[in-house]
């Protein structure tokens, strides 16, 4: 589903290389976790996959179902099935959450040549998805993410993921800033979307999230590349041994 080959990336306006020949494959139906110390390039990887402009790709490719997405703008990647749940979701004052959700869903449908949603169908879908994530109706009427707590923002990301039904979901430190109850709600939301046709890339510092979202594979990232891959037991091993050994190996 997602193939990343020899990806070399630097920050656009600086001479600072972040990813140094990264290789990674996530198959359909697979939940892959990426763990690694601060500064290893985990968030950069998520931004580059989603199409953020602040980076320059010096080498390599990112293929989604065999198609190179590097030439696409962020919106085209979203329509092609890539979804990034942000570590810090942005606040958009003045835009009601419902208005935003409808604009996003319809923009993707248009890009795929599908008919726009009828309002009653849209509202039904949103309400059903919101109930599962304990998001109340009042939150949906408020401006997007404005005044939301950390947990509310993360739940709103998962709500968007559920509604947009992407094929490749990237979760960037979705556990940061969550208490145990919020973590469980978010993890349940993610688990409900696990599907044989959908891939997940779960980026996290800690094992904790992976107790709730059990990964199929775990990759250790250090200094801009994957330095070790294994099964879910690798995450437990890391929790004991720490990242130091891997930073040296890189």
């Amino acid at each position, binding site marked *: 589903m997602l193939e990343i080959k020899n990806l070399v990336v630097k920050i656009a306006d600086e001479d600072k290389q972040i990813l140094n020949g990264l290789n990674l494959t996530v198959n359909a139906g697979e939940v892959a976790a990426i763990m690694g110390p601060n500064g290893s390039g985990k968030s950069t990887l998520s931004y580059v996959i989603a199409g*953020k402009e602040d980076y320059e790709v010096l080498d390599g490719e990112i293929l989604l179902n065999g198609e190179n997405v590097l030439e696409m703008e962020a919106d085209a990647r979203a329509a092609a099935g890539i979804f990034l749940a942000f570590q810090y979701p942005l606040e*958009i004052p003045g835009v009601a959450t419902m208005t935003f959700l409808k604009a996003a869903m319809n*923009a993707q449908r248009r890009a795929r040549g599908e008919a726009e949603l009828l309002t009653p169908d849209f509202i039904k879908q949103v309400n059903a998805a919101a109930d599962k994530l304990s998001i109340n109706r009042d939150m949906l009427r408020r401006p997007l993410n404005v005044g939301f707590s950390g947990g509310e923002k993360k739940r709103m990301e998962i709500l968007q993921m559920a509604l947009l039904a992407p094929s490749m979901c990237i979760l960037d430190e979705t556990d940061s800033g969550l208490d145990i109850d919020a973590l469980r709600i978010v993890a349940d939301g993610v688990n409900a979307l696990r599907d044989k046709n959908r891939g997940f890339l779960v980026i996290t510092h800690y094992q904790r999230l992976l107790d709730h979202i059990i990964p199929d594979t775990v990759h250790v990232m250090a200094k801009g590349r994957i330095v070790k891959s294994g099964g879910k037991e690798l995450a437990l091993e890391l929790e004991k041994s720490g990242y130091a050994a891997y930073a040296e190996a890189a």
Partner: protein
Amino acid sequence: MAIVTPLKTAAEQVLAQQFANVKAELPGGGAVRKLREDAFAGFEAKGLPHRRLESWRYTDLRMILREAKPLAGSAAVTPAVRERLAALKLDGTRLVLVDGAFAAELSTLEALPEGVSVNGLADALVSQRDDLTRILSGPSVSADDSGLMLNTALMRDGVMVEIAEGTELDAPIAIVSLTSGSEERAIFSRSVVLAGKGVKATIVDINESVGPAAAQINNAIVFETGDESEVQHVRIVTRQQPESVQVLSLLATVGAQAKFDSFALVCKAGTVRQQNFVRYAGEHTEIGLRGVNLLGGTEHCDVTLVMDHEVPHGTSRELYKTIVGGEGTGVFQGKVIVRPQAQKVDGSMKSNALLLNDGATMFNKPELEIFADDVVCGHGATVAQIDGEQLFYLMARGLPRPQAEALVLQAFAGEAVEFVAEESLRELIMSEIEAWLGERRDSAVVSAI
């Protein structure tokens, strides 16, 4: 000491000639006549406002008005005027000015709400009311403005609305100023709204052109609102020719324990100078001035405010949102004066601008003149680009760049619109904003192809 005699520009010479020609026929009794003479003498001494005057620093009217157009005469009620009026779909009372002249036949005078009376300003000027001079003069901080002096000297017509004490209106009263635009004309008009004690009213003030010829418009609106009144003024300035020049003055004197709000949207309006002079005439009064300016091409919009806190316990809130594209220029000059006796004043002034490209310009100049020692006054002025993080967030959810930009801009402008209480007016304003953003978005899509 050398005496400097400023050279008159061609436009100033024409204006002097015009005033000499028409002053005998302009409406008004002795007191009004004197007011006009004094105003024109003041104007002649100062000339057209220019960049060496601090209050006109960014809008050099002397340079902009290279020639003074012929004065507009009677209303030219063209089919386009009627079409536009029909399309406006305004609820409630509608008072129409065409080329600055009150068009009673286009106004809904037969169905005025109880407590409301309306006269053409020309009629009001010849009436014998003894408070005319005071009303027309407005707050003292406007006294030395030569743009306004010109209006006082040459005002021909307009509308005077009186709302009796205690009247609470259900629907807005709209003053629709249309420029016929069949010929290039100079229009000098003034309207007056007198709201008695406890009045609750909304005045909509629409300024548009329906013809191809660019106009020079000098229009003033005067508010005198009584104690415990709540009056909202909503101004929309749009659909003007790019070469048009407008000087729009707002003179407000607000009583005690009252609320007065003025909101203005300016888009597709050529060169616009808005100057708001506001005086707190009583204590415990809240005044809000807000606006949205959407500029492109070579458009220019100057918002200059003077809030005069003469008395204690006044609250003032200013919030202006300016989006500048093309080679446009935005200006915000806000001055809050707190006089020595005006303790416990609470003022907050904000001007936020977004520049969309390299050619766009914004001047932000907030000023606080505080002479009292127990006040809370603050200001904030920002000039920025569209937030790239917000844009990426929206695009990562599938919104194409032009649509994502439009949403971010709509949200930016919308913050000021939220203060318009009347829902139908908020919708009208947002629909104008969305149309402007839509045109911008569509042109972005075309250029991308």
